[in-house]
């Protein structure tokens, strides 16, 4: 068992970091909404799912059916990222407007919020399984099975660290996630809307008194968190080359785990938590076998919530350092 871990250590590390980057990007959505509203946006998994289809739709529109290279690749990558961000960000904003805003205004209970989120989640999943995938992606009768995504890049080794081969796609995912994290950090810490978000996270009442438009801040929070899930979705389809209506469920829970692990409400915590979860999953899988991958993640979720619900870095979007 431990021999497997040792022999697979570096390859597992690289797989874990790549997958963990995707968790981290999705985790941002949970963490931002939580930071501002103190609520778990349970339907965020569907925000990600719709992002993958946004990316796929962009590919279809561009007519890309196989690997491209050079500048074309960069261009296509930007376009599918944009397509996924629009799809995800739009979904997140719609969720806030349709499923949450009225509940917020009424000061409804957490249970109501949760049920509404579950309802929205089921609705969106089924909408894709029944209508969008069969009609929009020309797969009649096949709404519930995996949808292949055309390969965008030839996956080949770039270089190796020790005995681990770093493939270009894994590096892309990792670097892409880190870059987006830095961008987000800048947005939250340096821009006006970022200040609004932090002020609201810290104290909504005084934020209102200071002239912050809460509804707008909440909407922007959903939009930015959704857009990050969109980036995750674009990277996901490039890496895994498929998606399905149900893809968000597991990834969503794992990303939530990552958010809690890092300290929910804490943006850098999402990165730490995502990478940590990715690594734990990869190492665990190399020891126990891939059928235990999800069990490992869920167990981490249960254990973290039991023993350190404030996470590794603690909860804080309200603290100035996001």
């Amino acid at each position, binding site marked *: 068992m431990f021999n497997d871990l040792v022999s697979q250590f570096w390859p597992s590390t690289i797989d874990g970091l790549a997958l963990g980057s995707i968790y981290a990007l999705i985790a941002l959505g949970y963490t931002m909404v939580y930071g501002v509203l*103190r609520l778990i946006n349970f339907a965020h998994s569907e925000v990600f799912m719709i992002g993958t289809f946004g990316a796929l739709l962009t590919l279809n529109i561009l007519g890309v059916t196989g690997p491209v290279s050079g500048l074309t690749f960069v261009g296509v990558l930007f376009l599918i990222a944009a397509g996924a961000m629009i799809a995800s960000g739009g979904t997140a904003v719609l969720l806030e407007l349709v499923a949450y805003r009225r*509940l917020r205004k009424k*000061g*409804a209970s957490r249970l109501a919020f949760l049920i509404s989120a579950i309802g929205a989640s*089921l609705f969106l999943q*089924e909408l894709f399984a029944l209508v969008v995938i069969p009609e929009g992606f020309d797969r009649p009768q096949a709404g519930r099975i995996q949808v292949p995504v055309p390969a965008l890049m030839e996956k080949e080794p770039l270089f190796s660290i020790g005995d681990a081969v770093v493939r270009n796609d894994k590096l892309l995912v990792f670097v892409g996630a880190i870059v987006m994290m830095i961008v987000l950090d800048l947005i939250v810490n340096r821009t006006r809307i970022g200040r609004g978000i932090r002020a609201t996270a810290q104290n909504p009442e005084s934020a209102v008194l200071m002239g912050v438009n809460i509804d707008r801040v909440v909407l922007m929070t959903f939009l930015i968190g959704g857009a990050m899930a969109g980036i995750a979705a674009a990277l996901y389809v490039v890496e895994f080359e498929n998606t399905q209506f149900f893809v968000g469920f597991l990834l969503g829970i794992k990303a939530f785990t990552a958010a*809690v692990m890092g300290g929910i409400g804490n943006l850098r915590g999402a990165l730490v938590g995502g990478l940590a979860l990715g690594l734990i999953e990869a190492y665990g899988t190399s020891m126990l076998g891939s059928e235990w991958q999800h069990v490992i993640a869920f167990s981490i*979720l249960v254990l973290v919530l039991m023993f350190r619900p404030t996470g590794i870095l603690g909860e804080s979007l309200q603290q100035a350092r996001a």
Partner: protein
Amino acid sequence: MSHSKNTTGIGPVRAAMRKITTPFDEMRDWWGRAPGWVRWTVYGLVIVAALLAPSDSVGAFMSPESDWATILFYPIGVFVLLAIGLNVVVGQAGLLDLGFVAFFAIGGYVMAVIGTELGWNFWEIIVVAVLISSLSGIILGAPTLRLRGDYLAIVTLGFGEIVRLVAQNTDAIGGPRGINSIPHPPDMSDIEIIPDLQPFTYGVIDPRPYYYLLVALCVLVIIFARRLEKSRVGRAWAAIREDEDAAEIMGVPTFRFKLLAFAIGAAIGGATGTVFAAKMISIVPNNFPFILSATILAAVVLGGSGNLPGVILGAFLVGWLPERFRGFEDYRVLLFGGVLVLMMIVRPQGLLPSRQRSAEFAEGSGMGGMGAEVATPTAKAEVSSR
């Protein structure tokens, strides 16, 4: 349109909803004042109706396209019993549980494993299953019940998935193929009440004896739950929902009472699983998906959490409607999801809520109102230290 609600299209829905639900509210208030003999007569009539339900003439209307008695067992009967169990956790104690299916699964697997491996009979196993499932409830609850509401929801969701995935990955209990040839309960009597109905003979073909078994369990559990509700236990739960700290300072061992609710809910879930496995002959891990937990929770909430008649109504509707309108079968989860969102907007307290729960929902208290929190963020204090 000066009224913003109307421009969004929710206004008419709300008005329609009020028309539907006002009689419910009036009925509840009438029921609250009704004298004892009226209540007992109603209870009697309900039981008679439940016993007469699996007849062909009723079935012709209720489910023209499939066997009514089968549907009465699953999903309807199973949903109702599960919902009564989950109501103890969600409705009474105010704890969010998104992994309730785990206990249903544990009960089912206990029945399947002991029944096939050790050859015990159903009545012995159901006792063991109740003990094991409530024990697993305590094991899950003890470290997690200190968590705030929605964290608890996610942790229980994780637990539910762990149980299913472990069953799927463990070859000793059949892996993804599950367990076959689970024994039926032993026949208690082959008495024939009316032609072709032997209510105590548990065979392969006739679902009615199993349905009656569920009805009997429901009645027992309802009596038990009602008594708890009116005792110090129910008062403690209500106090915890309203103000956990004040309850603790008034001498309520809040943690112990929350754990108790979890264990009782788990026991009921486990008992349901036992009956389910004994009827189905074979079970597989995919009998116990997350969506089932979500469905039962939704049944509790749609019906009116905390109020048994409401919860039973909710579970009945959630189990029955998709079977009745088979034409919409493909769209049922879609519609279900939409209805959940809509209900939370227009009537979050459910169709038939208790007065107390209605009031709690109206002011956003009970299970941590978010209204107050958005106003004053107290994240650190909320994740209670140990």
